[in-house]
């Protein structure tokens, strides 16, 4: 019985494969904070995190705190996905959110129903602790 209970708690969806380059991103999310990369030389903001600025190839990077507010750029309600973890949570909302800082990122919308979502709708970050090690950045309608 104890085994069955712990199986139920097991997180079935794919988890990110962290690496040294991405660790600061994921560690910030674990603290429920959102940081994005900015080039110290040319000031270009970038997502997803990477070691070099794609504009000037500089390795000098700073992590800047981001407010976690944005708007829905586009979305879809997924009704069919055979992958473990997702097939049990249909329908789910996948979206691009455009942060106020101007970056678009792929995410899930939570705490709302598919027919409540509109493109342009203001949303805010929620930090979903998927496992003790990994926290995912999702968004919900702004309050």
């Amino acid at each position, binding site marked *: 019985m104890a085994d069955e209970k712990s199986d139920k708690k097991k997180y079935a*969806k*794919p*988890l*990110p*494969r*962290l*690496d040294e*380059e*991405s660790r600061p991103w994921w560690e910030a999310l674990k603290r429920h904070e959102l940081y994005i990369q900015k080039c110290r030389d040319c000031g*270009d*903001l*970038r*997502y*997803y995190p*990477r070691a070099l600025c*794609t504009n000037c190839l500089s390795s000098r990077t700073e992590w800047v705190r981001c407010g976690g507010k944005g708007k829905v*750029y*586009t*979305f*879809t*309600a*997924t*009704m*069919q*996905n*055979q*992958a473990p*973890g*997702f097939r049990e949570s249909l329908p*789910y909302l*996948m*979206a*691009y959110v455009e942060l106020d800082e*101007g*970056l*678009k*990122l*792929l*995410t*899930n919308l939570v705490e709302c129903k*598919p027919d409540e979502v509109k*493109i*342009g709708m203001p949303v805010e970050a929620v930090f979903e602790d*998927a496992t003790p090690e*990994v926290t*995912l950045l999702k968004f919900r309608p702004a309050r």
Partner: protein
Amino acid sequence: MSLSRKTALAGVFEHPARFAPNKSMFQIMAESVRGALDDAGLKIQDVDGVCTTGIGMSGMGVVGFCDYMNLTPNFVDSTSIGGSSFVAHTAHAAAAIAAGLCKVAVVVYGSTAASQRFAIGTGGGGGGSDPCDQYEVPFGPTTVGSYAMMAQRHMHEYGTTSEQLAEIAVTMRLHASMNPAAKYRELITVEDVMASRIISSPLHLLDCCIISDGGGALVVTSAERARDLKKKPAYILGCAETVRHPARGRRDFMEMAASQSGPLAFERAGVTPGDIDMAMIYDSFTITVLMTLENLGFCKRGEGGAFVGGGRLRYDGALPTNTDGGGLSSNHPGMRGIFLVIEAVKQLRGECGPRQVKDCALALCHGTGGTLGIRHSGATLILSNQ
């Protein structure tokens, strides 16, 4: 240096199989190569270039296939940029032949996607082990979901409707009804598409390509040699390829790879969209066709919804598109780029029977590979029978 009219497609073959649980991927590929060489009037000993990739194939699959065929070519290419790969392979083979790297190249694809029950559009976490994947796979990005997000945005920006997208599926099915090899041949209506279940909003089941087994092959050689062979050559006039991705978080997602590869290919071919007699546009989903036509410059951005209506894409319309029935109705064994080129060549030769486009002299193929809403490739090829 211009490639225009230096090389040609001398042979094509579409494998008739739509469900082949008794055949291996390499067998389908080998039978396709045999068919294309027969079509050209060439022998296996003439082949000194091999281009292939596949969804069921390992990274070194091209070497494995050379082993299967006992070939030791002077040119190999296994560019793997999704379903568009074979359009790009055709261009690469043409460039290799024009540069003297090889003389007769085969481009080949085979897959048993249907009999192995690959969940191509709606399976997996939607990613592999590349560094970028960790920011996507946790959110469940299916292939159809990625295209669906683009359809949703297109509807928002331009007022495109589901009924307009459905017109594309209806037209492809009409074409399939005239293609004896097509997997689905019963006519459908806009209402049928609208009544089919939603797979990923706003895309319905009938907005999505089918899954089949299948394969095909092309023979590319110099224009000079092609003129001495069995069939009328389809000359390669222009080609181009590129990729689109989220662009460090700044992409305008309504702009596709086709907006770069299209104009480049037109310029290299010395023709304009208005000159094209028929188009083969990768139809993974209805939205792919609509957005590709806009991005290639057949209509303005945002006008695709109106453009695809009124029978314009029918075999007897102003821009006959996917006259074989496309991936939406004829076949889609995981990757479809090769069939774009096969049907275009058959149309240029006048071999298409009831679905033949009248006076067809100039054809365009555009392959879209990968996921339109995350990362995709685009490859454009312009062919002529003159």
